[in-house]
């Protein structure tokens, strides 16, 4: 059900997010714009120094506007918020002065940025920006789908760890139930011993019994685990008009069934055989 929920939710979010993307990556990809960014502090304020080979495209990708001319070599365009740092049309960075050709208007970080067309800034990080959704990109916006995937991944990791504790509980429960049922069947075992039932045959019967109980339990668990959430989801979707979730069958479900069956068979067999040995020894 958790996997089914994830699939349905991701599909809905993908549909909702639309097709307009902006993506940033540290790895190059087709049609991506290469920029170099480095942080800098001017008058106690953190600003970004950015260089890009395609200034116009950079503005388009970021949805920014330029008041003035695009910069060329040794020239920069500065964000509106940095206007007060410009003296006589010049901007000072690390002791170097750059001619300011225009001011960037943006509702984003570019209002605090200094943009040049050549890499004139030291220790810069290389990033690639594109307007296409790409598998290479580490970050793309709107990030609703990535966030949902990340959150589901967190939840599914937790659920998979819970599974192991449940196997542990199942094993413990089967072992003690097997052992206890043999202790409770003291009189029947004594009767079997008195009529000379071979120990090997009783042991094999125990194993057969463990097999049947484990198989029945696994199948019953599978049917209930599939049917009940499916039924709940159907009722909820009819009453509250919410999307219906169909239980998802995949390899993971099969693996869980196998592990559940193995754990219960092993623990029940050990419990039954252990209990029988104790009763034989006591007799």
């Amino acid at each position: 059900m958790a996997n089914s929920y994830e699939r349905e939710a991701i599909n809905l979010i993908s549909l909702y997010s639309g097709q307009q993307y902006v993506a940033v990556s540290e790895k190059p990809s087709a049609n991506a714009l290469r920029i170099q960014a480095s942080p800098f502090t001017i008058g106690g304020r953190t600003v970004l120094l950015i260089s890009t080979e395609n200034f116009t495209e950079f503005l388009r990708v970021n949805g920014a506007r330029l008041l003035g001319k695009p910069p060329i070599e040794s020239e920069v365009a500065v964000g509106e918020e940095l206007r007060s740092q410009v003296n006589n049309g010049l901007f000072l960075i690390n002791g170097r002065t750059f001619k300011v050709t225009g001011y960037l208007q943006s509702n984003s970080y570019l209002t605090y940025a200094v943009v040049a067309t050549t890499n004139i800034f030291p220790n810069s990080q290389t990033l690639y920006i594109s307007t296409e959704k790409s598998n290479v990109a580490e970050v793309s916006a709107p990030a609703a789908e990535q966030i949902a995937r990340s959150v589901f991944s967190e939840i599914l990791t937790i659920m998979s760890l819970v599974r192991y504790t449940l196997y542990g509980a199942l094993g413990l429960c089967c072992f003690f139930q097997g052992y206890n049922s043999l202790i409770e069947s003291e009189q029947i075992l004594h009767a079997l011993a008195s009529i000379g039932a071979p120990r090997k045959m009783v042991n094999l019967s125990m194993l057969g019994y463990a097999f049947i109980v484990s198989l029945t339990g696994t199948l019953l668990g599978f049917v209930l685990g599939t049917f009940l959430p499916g039924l709940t989801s159907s009722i909820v979707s009819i009453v509250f008009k919410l999307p219906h979730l169909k239980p998802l069958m995949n390899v993971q479900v099969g693996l869980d069934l196998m592990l559940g069956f193995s754990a219960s068979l092993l623990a029940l067999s050990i419990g039954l055989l252990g209990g029988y040995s104790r009763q034989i020894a006591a007799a």
Partner: protein
Amino acid sequence: MGYKRLAAFSAAFFVGLLTANLAFALIVEPGFGLDLILRGGEREGIAILDRASRSIYTSRIPLSLALSLGKLPNVQVEPIVTSICYVQGSAIVVRGVESTGAYTRWLSRGRLPESDGPWIVLGRRAAERIHAPIGQVIPVASSLARTIVLLTVAAVCDFGDMRDDEALVHEGIARQLSSIPSGMISAAIVQGTNREAIEKLVETNYKLNLKCASDLSGNLVVLDANGVPLRTSKVVDKLEESYELPFGYYTIVFQNQYLYSTLGTVLLKSDQSLEYSVRAEQRPVLKVSASKKPVLLRSDGVQVQASEEEGLWVFRSTPGIHRLELDSGAFMIPLFHSATFDPTILAGKAYTTRVSVSWSDGNPASDCSLLVRTAEGRVVLSILVPQDNVKVDLPEGSYVIEAYKLPYSAQISISVPAVSDVKLILPSIKSNVEKIPLQYYTFIKAMPIETISAFTLASISGISAALLIGLAFSIIFLFVMVLATVQRYLYLSAKTRLTVLSLLGASNRFLLGHIELPILAISLALVAATASISFVSNALLFSRLTLFGHTIPHDPVMTLLFSATLTILVWFWGHFALAKNIEM
């Protein structure tokens, strides 16, 4: 019972409890963590959300509503701008802050930024998860908008709570990431009142009846708590107007070409009628007491001619700021109505009064003209305030202090020496603020903090909350069964001895004292041991598990209580089963 059986029981019970604690740490504790995350980390108070929103992260409410609620007596309001963003492979909650000054005590590495800009301050665990050193530029993606912001990691803070998994950015950047326009916030956390009171306040509109008599023609403007003009009416001599407005803190200002003055403020929580008057003259007269003829200059530099009447120098001018030059010095005189300038009143014992002037958004106002009049209207002092505050010495009495930074002005009446600290607020209309339809104010939803997460889950899907709760209860029940089976083993394996004891006439009380209570003691000792081991193992094994980018909180007391409850339930089960067997 036999040492071997007890050892086997203890070992099995220990394993069962340990497994139960692990399951509890993986199911129930994330539930508590999710509950806190969906509340935005808030533990107390009333959350004000947009009625159509699904969580604190997707809500939008007007900032002026939060500011207005904060004007209610004994009510504290915390506005929140927050959203869930995506950074380097993981979801992260980003909160907007106006300044980082309050965070200095939690600073762990780096330097807290002193102004706005493209910076990000990471919580300790968020920094570990993102692997971003100080000074690195990281792209932060908005969940809803087509916006990626490049931010520089400025500092890492160690809060010691769930904020360690979050990030702080400047409020402006937070607005971009959450697509919240100016004038709006995500939500507000209100303390000091209850949900019913807030909903009652906001569900209806109220009538504000204004009467204004004015010597000058101009406009009467009603500003909301955020300084945004909501209503404007033209005033010629007299105005009577009735406005229908939602609950809020409103400022009524008069505005014309020369003057922009606050007439009053009102916290509108019922129908109210207010009367104001604007006293200014077209040809104000200034009378000056001086031995030598003074010089009065208008702001445009034109000298105003003086005549001598009844021992005073009389100037007839136009409204505005004037410069008066006397032998004793020069004074700035805001002249909007007839006045007599008589600084001799200041002679005698004086008390120091601190006067500060600021704009309505809280920023200090410098270079303002300050005029001090007596209650009778005689001007005793006129000075320029170079910074945002000034100290003036005044004799005992009642005064009106006026601040002018044309066209803006504000005034206040005080009594000296009762008042020693005066704050004057110059009105200002904010530009570029989102125009919020007034109907929006009544679309809010107030709910106790503890119900937000259930509301969110229920909104996302009707079955999510039920499934989680059902899963948690199923697992708890399963472990009760497991431990009961283990305990049953102990009683069954000692069945013969117990039967003998019963035949010998051992009472239930004897069995309780000599068998069951020692078993309970052993079980509780195992509870303490497993809870301790679970707490350490949870911290080691599950420290990397996150939910909405938040590390899952592990509470040792909660684990201990869970184990103890399981054990006591199982013990009672065993007790009744044993009593039944003995009877049979």
